[in-house]
């Protein structure tokens, strides 16, 4: 049962990270609402962190560095979500819509 030993392979995690990245790209391209795009961007960040953690576990000499990097990605993702959502709320207050195609004027 080699399939039960997948968690000891580096490439399993890397391919999972690539899949998460691809699903996130698909979401960003096809979503119409700003919040949907933000959710897809979170998926892309999750794929990137998974890559860092996989290399950290299997290939890096110092297994702390990747964890610190992933922690930094999480903090940046939290900041990005906070700023992005407050922009979404400001846009909604002005246009009464969160459709990405309604917000075409730079100056409100």
């Amino acid at each position, binding site marked *: 049962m080699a399939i039960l030993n997948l968690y000891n392979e580096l490439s399993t995690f890397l391919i999972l990270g690539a899949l*998460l990245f691809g699903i996130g790209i698909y979401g960003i391209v096809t979503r119409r609402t700003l919040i*949907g795009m933000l*959710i897809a961007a979170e998926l892309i960040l999750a794929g990137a962190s998974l890559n860092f*953690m996989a290399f950290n576990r299997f*290939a890096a*000499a110092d297994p702390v560095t990747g964890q*610190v990097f992933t922690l930094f990605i999480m903090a940046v993702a939290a900041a990005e979500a*906070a700023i992005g959502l407050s922009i*979404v*709320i400001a846009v909604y207050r002005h246009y009464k819509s969160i459709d990405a195609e309604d917000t075409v004027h730079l100056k409100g």
Partner: protein
Amino acid sequence: MTPTMTNPTLFSVEGMVGVVFLVMVALTLTGAVIACNSVRLVRSVAGLILCFVGVAGLYFFLNSPFIAMMQILIYVGAVAVTIAFAIMLAAPEQKKKLGPMGPLAGPLGFATAALLSGSLAVLVWRTDWPVREKINDGSVKNIGIQLLTDHMMVFELISLVLLIAILGALVIARGGREG
């Protein structure tokens, strides 16, 4: 610590660990697909939470329970809840139907995503990644020591970035509010 090449049977301890790993992978991918494909935004946040719990499980398998806990605390506890609040504040309850996307947007987006992740997967498959000898065990104690010595700058920058993000979010979201 070193990857072993044994083939465990299903009903041994290693086999059950493998089953749990497959469940985590399924959770992650199902959650991601739900997050990108559901029509209602609330369901897509639920899918995002599912995906993040699965990724936290994968971090457990990557020998870092600390990052797994942080994943659940920060992403599931903070980011997903923030997105849920923003949906409640801003999503217009399907009053205005979103217009059609154009017939090519779905297939072209799928083709782009498939091309990207497929080429990344082929790259992963063909590369022989060099493996280095570990110099410490990556425990929480070591993370703490290195955060306050080698990675001091990162530690300080995280707090600065979060402070500026909080202030910026307040400033942006307050503007234009009546009363």
